[in-house]
């Protein structure tokens, strides 16, 4: 009999999820019920996964201890996303609900040990994300959704092709403990799979959806993108492809590693250089995410036996928190769900609200990797790995690209502290930021700082 220890938890989760979906139908009070249920759902889930040693449904679905940790973090992140979405309007709650489905996909992605579950959960996450983008209702949301959808579909076809070859080469879908029947087909499939990974984490040259999507979605969607999709998919995909590559023949492996190094360096430079000329925050953040994908991509090239997962999680976690916090802070200064998010709205922002200005400053600097913020500690750990594995030149190239990156992060600080409002400036409506969002932001800011000063608090979770 299979160990089904995860079954009650997941059933309860799905049950409450359905309940909260249904409760939207309740007139007037529906959104509050749904909102409450969603949060309660996450809390119960968080509680119950931490009660058990291991979580499994069948012998093909096992969440190990590391997975449990990732799920815990993701759950907290999901709560954050829900809080960010809020409950003022029905569509906010609806977005939270769809995010719940994304989260559901994430759960299965973490626990999957074979590609079929992996595929379905990945598709669940992507489809829900397309819908979220479509539902954002900004000026170009629909275009962005179409673009994202078409590119995503092509990508999922490539993924399936990779799966087909993988299957052809191993005779099964398990990605742990398989035997390779045909090395050439296997290598080919892994090559294709690598492309899928590059697309999912938004590396060059598969990055074109990133700026379009990021600049045309609600802050909540962006938050769920950073906190859930990017975090989970980034981690799972990178470690998975790292595992798969290690099974290849050495010369193929070397070639793959050099491709990855090349792509990651180009991504880092491309993202950082393009970030310089952006006038919109969300686009700037998007290109910064392209650059960051380059930074973390190189982990694929590392030796899997050394166990660099912790560093990667640490890095992704704080990257997601910082990026989300930046988005939220900017939303305080100008309602990015309604306005063009140009730098003008930010000018002299620090003097409007010291707390928000400081938090924005901290989080942007964390993205830039300036010490005393977690961005530095995480980058330090991640990059030290590269040095340790002998990828000295590439790691240096990444570092050099991050110099370019500082150039645009610091522009935010300049706008915040040093600019005066232009004379003919029409004031934009500042985003209403609820009290719980303020608390949340403060919490995130403190975490970002703590992660930089005492990283052991977090890396030792």
């Amino acid at each position, binding site marked *: 009999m299979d160990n089904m220890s995860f079954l009650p938890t997941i059933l309860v989760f799905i049950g409450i999820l359905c309940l909260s979906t249904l409760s939207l139908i309740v007139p007037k009070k529906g959104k509050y019920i749904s909102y409450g249920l969603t949060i309660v759902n996450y809390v119960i889930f968080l509680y119950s996964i931490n009660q058990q040693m291991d979580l499994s449904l069948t012998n093909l679905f096992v969440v190990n201890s590391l997975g449990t940790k990732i799920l815990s973090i993701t759950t907290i992140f999901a709560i954050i996303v829900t809080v960010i979405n809020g409950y003022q309007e029905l569509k906010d709650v609806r977005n939270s609900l769809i995010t719940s489905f994304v989260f559901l996909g994430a759960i299965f992605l973490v626990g999957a040990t074979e590609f079929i579950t992996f595929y379905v959960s990945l598709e669940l996450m992507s489809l829900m994300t397309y819908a979220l983008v479509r539902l954002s209702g900004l000026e170009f949301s629909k275009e962005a959704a179409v673009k994202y959808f078409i590119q995503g579909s092509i990508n999922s076809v490539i993924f399936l092709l990779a799966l087909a070859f993988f299957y052809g080469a191993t005779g099964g879908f398990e990605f742990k403990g398989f035997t390779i029947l045909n090395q050439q087909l296997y290598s080919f499939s892994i090559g294709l799979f690598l492309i899928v990974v590059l697309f999912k984490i938004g590396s060059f040259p598969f990055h074109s*959806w990133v700026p379009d999507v990021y600049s045309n979605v609600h802050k909540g969607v962006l938050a769920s993108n950073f906190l859930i999709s990017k975090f989970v998919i980034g981690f799972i995909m990178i470690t998975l492809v790292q595992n798969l590559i290690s099974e290849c023949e050495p010369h*193929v492996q070397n070639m793959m590693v050099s491709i990855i190094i090349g792509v990651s360096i180009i991504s880092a430079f491309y993202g950082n250089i393009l970030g310089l000329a952006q006038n919109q925050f969300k686009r700037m953040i998007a290109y910064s995410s392209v650059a960051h994908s380059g930074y973390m991509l190189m982990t694929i090239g590392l030796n899997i036996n050394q166990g660099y997962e912790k560093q990667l999680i640490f890095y992704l976690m704080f990257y997601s928190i910082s990026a989300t916090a930046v988005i939220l802070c900017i939303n305080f200064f100008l309602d990015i769900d309604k306005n063009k998010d140009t730098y003008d709205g930010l000018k002299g922002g620090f003097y409007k609200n010291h707390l928000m200005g400081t938090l924005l400053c901290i989080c942007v600097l964390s993205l830039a990797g300036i010490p005393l913020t977690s961005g530095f500690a995480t980058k330090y750990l991640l990059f030290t790995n590269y040095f340790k594995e002998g990828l000295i030149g590439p790691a240096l190239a990444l570092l050099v690209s991050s110099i370019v990156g500082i150039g645009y992060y610091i522009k935010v600080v300049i706008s915040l502290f040093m600019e005066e409002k232009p004379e003919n400036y029409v004031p934009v409506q500042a985003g209403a930021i609820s009290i719980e969002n303020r608390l949340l932001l403060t919490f995130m800011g403190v975490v970002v700082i703590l992660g930089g000063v005492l990283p052991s608090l977090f890396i030792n979770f």
Partner: protein
Amino acid sequence: MSELYLKIIPLFPLLAFLTNGLILKSNAKNSLAGFISFLGTFISFIFVCLLYPYVKETPVTASLWQWMQFSNFTFEVKFLMDNLSIILSIMVTGIGSLITLFAIGYMDHDERPGKFFSYLSLFIFSMLLLTLSENLLVLFFGWEGVGLCSYLLIGFWYTDLDKAKAGRKAFVANRVGDLGVVLGIVGYAMVFHSISFVDLKAVSMETVLANKEMLTLSSLFLVLGATGKSAQIPLYIWLPDAMSGPTPVSALIHAATMVTAGVFMLCRISFVITHLSVVLEVIAWIGSVTALMAAIVAVTQSDIKKVLAYSTVSQIGFMIAACGVGAFSSGMFHVFTHAFFKALLFLGAGAVIHCLHHEQDMFKMGGLKKKMPKTYWCFVVALLSIAGVPLFSGFFSKDEIMWMAFNKAGTGQYIFAILLTAATLTAFYMTRLVCLTFLSKDKTHHDPHHPIHDAPPIMIIPLAILSICSIGVGYLGMPHFMSHENARAFQLFVEKAVSGPKPIVYDEHTEHLLMGLTIGLTFISMFLAYFMYVKNEESKLADKFKFNLRKVWNLSNNKFFVDEVYFAIIIKPIKNFAGFLVNIVEKYVIDGAVRTIGILSFQSSVFLKSVRGVELQSNIFFMIMGLTIIVTILFSALMVK
């Protein structure tokens, strides 16, 4: 006891400086500030005199504090009073007191007497630091200190931009010399592992010759320093400009004391350089050529202070030349005598200028003999001294130098000839100065309300004292033919502390011949000057000379165009180079490189932004291209094996 005296000697001028500078209100009375300053200097003078009996027996040293300490070297702030420094100390404090007294009268209308006298006291303090120094470091303290005071005092009337500039010029020129001093000190320390004069005095000839190259270089550096401070070629250019300071300052700093510091330093290192023939040769030529050149320039100047300035340069040239021929003690003797008569000349000129309301052009003076008789007679004493008329102090010292030069092996005769010409010219231009100022026709501007008369007693008394000294001090170092017992008494006293001249074969006949020649030329040129400027004033004899020798005259009047040449070959290139550095190198190369990187990355950003496809089709295109490229690369790896 003697140590204590030594330690407190410089204290009084310092106290006077602090009192005048910090405590005294800026609008305090001139006489009060002057009196404080005078008191500071005079008490020092008394202590120096008190120290004399001790020093006569044996040099006194006093260690004050450790400046810095290293594992193999210790810098100490330490004083030394020996036969050399006591002479200079007496000179500094004595003449300093007199000039301070004079300045009380001279500066009676100034707005900031407190400041003036505090600077003056600071100068005395620095000068004492220089003279009392036991090692080259402390000497350098004083050395730069006096340079600083010189800067402050030259530019004392700073609202006149030219005066401020003159001060800066003096400081910078001195700094060039100071560079030499620093490097020289280091060089000496590298060889001797000590910078103490006591140790330098004890060096053996073998040590010196073993490190000949290093020591020659270092000594030449020190000579450079000496030329800076003592206004010799090539750094003398600041001294004539320095005359824009108040006249007492010119008298004290730029005639009597500070400018002789170079000679003092050469005396201090005499035990080393006396073994270095190249250095001596260089010194001798620098001194003699400067003496001649400055004398030539002095002949044609019309500003009374400029004439005196060039005369100072010329006279110091004599002293330096003396050092160059190995007769350090003779050089010191000339320093001593020169201090008195040159101070007298300057103070006299100061009195004249003061009474003529800051008129300095000699051609606008004349006939002052009747209006300012006391000043006139003081001036005449000084003239006779400097011109080298027998029985006056200048005669003794100058003649000694020329005799020593003549006896120098090798180039001695040439140097003698140059010095002789310079001495002749000196007699001429000094007589010219006296004639134009006092004896010629009255060309002064008459102001019935302020008739021209002699200066007040507080200015005249110092003049009188200095006149007596100008006559008297010469007898301290009489030549052989005057007194066999006391011959060269002064020099022998000094030679306990400095290197003595090489023994010469005494040839009385030659000496008398040369002396006769010198005296004869002196009288001829004095008479010529009198003849030109007084007797034939109406017939414009001087102008005829001027016209016939106009090329030489122009050269002389324009100071051989040295300032212009320096400007063209040193100052202007440096300024242009600095401009080039700022406007080209800094802007386009160093900063430009940085900016270019910035601009390039931003422009590439803009470019990439523009080529990035915005429509769906190009996004798909990029995807497919990426797919193809990666797959192809991978495929090649698969196939190659």
